[in-house]
Structures are given as C-alpha cells and as structure tokens.
C-alpha cells in the first residue's frame, strides 16, 4: 500500500470505554477518520484492562485510513499507583500527598522508556521524578 502519513496523534483514553465524545471525536473528526471504527477496535483491544488509562497512538494516512498502537499509561498514573494515592495533591508545591522510592522511579522510567524520547534511563528517571514532584509526591532516597 502506498501509505504516506498525514498526521500522528496520541489520545488519552480509558481502557474499554472509548466513545465518540472528546477527545476521540474532535481529534479524529478533524482528520476525517472513521470514528466508530476506531472506537470499536480500541475497546476490543483494551477490554481486559478496564479501569486503566491506556493512551492510543494513531497514525493517519493520506487516504484517511489509519492504524494505532497502545502506549503505556501516563507517568502520572503510574506514580499515583506506586504512591498508593487516589489523586495528586490538591495544591502541589505546598502540600505533600505521598512519596515513592527511587527504585519505584526507576521501575516507572523503565516502563515509560519506550514512549519517551529520553536516550538513557537517567534522563527518563529525571522526567518521572519531575512529574512526581509536580504532583506533590516526594521522591525518597
């Protein structure tokens, strides 16, 4: 197939629960992608991970056909889980909502490496630690 890419996007979606509502509708609709086709495939592929946020990276071709891949949950999601928190601090920078260890930072960084452009694990760990701090989660050790 003479595939040439016209757009690449990532949508933050809840596994098994994508619908034509935003972000799917407006983000894909502007490119003329068949939205129900995407929703059906995404929900099928993610049905077994209900409750998790699983971003989809969508490649849209010149003739408006598309393909997509599932990405790892956002760093914030992984940090929250590692710290055992429901949500981040309501006033980050002033309030400490919880903490994670540097080993946990490394584990999350390893998980996120495939999605980040960070060249080495140290850079990925710095990004994860930065995200944690902005959420009001302290990094110990």
């Amino acid at each position, binding site marked *: 197939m003479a*595939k040439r*890419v016209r757009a690449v996007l990532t949508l933050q979606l809840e596994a098994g629960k994508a619908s034509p*509502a935003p*972000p799917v509708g407006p983000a894909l609709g502007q490119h003329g992608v*068949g939205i129900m*086709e995407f929703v059906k495939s995404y929900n099928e592929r993610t049905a077994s991970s209900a409750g998790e946020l699983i971003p989809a990276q969508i490649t849209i071709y010149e003739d408006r056909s598309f393909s997509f891949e599932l990405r790892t949950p956002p760093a914030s999601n992984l940090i929250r889980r590692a710290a055992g928190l429901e*949500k981040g601090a309501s006033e980050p920078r002033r309030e400490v909502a919880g903490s994670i260890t540097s080993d946990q930072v490394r584990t999350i960084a390893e998980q996120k490496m495939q999605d980040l*452009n960070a060249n080495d694990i140290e850079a990925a760990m710095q*990004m994860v630690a*930065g995200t944690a701090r902005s959420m009001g989660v302290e990094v110990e050790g």
Partner: protein
Amino acid sequence: MSSDQAELAVAAWELAGVRHSSIEYGLDEPREEPWPGHDQRSDRAEVAAYLKAEQWAEMESPLRAALGELLDAEPEIAVRGMPERDWRTAWHDHFNLVRIPGARPIVVRPPHIAYDPKRGEVVIDLVPGLAFGTGQHQSTRLCLRLLASVIEGGERVLDVGTGSGILAVAAAALGAASVTATDVDPIAVDAARETARQNQAADRIEVREDSVPATEQFDLITANLTADLLQYLAGDLAAALRPSGRLIVSGLIETRLSEVQGSLEGVGLELLAVEREDEWRAMLLRSSVR
C-alpha cells in the same frame, strides 16, 4: 513543545482534572512510512484539552501553573470554541463518492451516501477503516483506472498489498474469474475479507496473509505499494506473471518513476503505459516472456 514535554503536559493537566486530552505531532508534509508501525511522531507536539467553557474558567490558572512548572516557561495556550455535534458522523464530511470515469466507470461508495448506479457502472461499497485503500488517494484511483482499461473478463488476478481489498473487489466486479488478495498485515487481511463480503464477491476473492505467492502464476497483478517495495519485489512479481501477463504498479511519485521502471524492466517486463494524477504515477507493464 517536544514530544517528551507533551507527555509531561498531559500528566500535569490530568492532575489538574483534565480527563480528555490529545497530543498532535505536527508534520510539515505527508511522510512515507518506511515500514508498518514505524513511529512517525515529530518533535513539534501540540497538546489539546477538551473542556466545557465553565470548566475552563475554573481551571485556567491551575492549568497554566502546572504547565509553567513543567516547561519552565510561560506556556502558549490558544482557546478555541467547538460546536457540539454528533462526532460519530464527523468523518462523513471528508468522504464523498469517488468516480473513476472511462469506458467502464467505477464508483466507490462510502456507506453514508445513497447512490443509484447508472447502467454499466461498477459500484464498490467501502467502509473506510484500518486498512489503506479508501478510494480517496490518487494511487488507488490510478490503479482502478488501469484495471478498468485492461480487464476483459475471465482473468486470474493477484492483488499484492490489498489493504482494504478495494482493488481485489474492483477486479472481481470487472469480470476477473478469480482474485487472490494478499497482505502481510493481518488487520488488512480482515478488512479485505469484510470488503469482499460486503460486495458479494467473497466467493471469487481469496484473501491470504502473504506477500507474492511463490508457486502460482497470474494473468494480471496489481501492486499498489511504495517505490522501495516495488523494487524489492520486482523479481517476485515478474515470476508470478504467466507469459504475456500484465502488471499494474502504483504508489509512486513522479521523482521515483524512472528508477522503479528500470528495476521492473531489468526483470523482463516491458512498459505499456503510464497514468498520472497530480504528482502520483502508476505503470502498466507486460511480461516479455511469450
């Protein structure tokens, strides 16, 4: 912002309570995908959050603060109004009937458009989806045009890289006795089977997860691929043609035409015609084995 910053921005916004966001990676112009699934994200990302107007009023300052902290700079934020609409049908605006004029006109019909075929027209029903070949691209239309001009009826046809199956269905509708459609992508194989079924042609089209079959020969082959793939597969394509069999290749832009032509002539094919639409080219060739 960079794609890494975009990841972090999404994380920051999510914490501020934004559930619905997307990242779009800017491309200056369409890019060829070197292999299926190759990551084409650019480093010019835009993050969009979808909020109701009253939510935005409430969240603007925490969002700006969270972003500013992550980016270490004042973020550029543009706010745009968006009408409520039924997003399920948004793509309809982009898909019209595709007409391929000629002695045997072909019409590609998306499901939301009602159309009564005129006498002699070949109508293909196509639901655009997860496989290339919606009829909206020049390379597909060029193939359809050449197919309509060469099929006489009764041929054994091979469609390599069938995608949505549009060319396989067109070949069957134009009178081919049998069509073998192959694709290395299992999603395309499913899509092509579905297109064949929707067009009541499943009995004449065999869809397989394969490239160019090594042990069979065909009267006519269609290959809407890329310049690189056509050069790589040139020998296999020539070997799969019966003596005097014909080959339609597409998916080339003008600047790659002569090099692909050279590769195909190098394996014993002769050029019969070149079709053009915008910068795209398709070639009709014949096996010089008699």
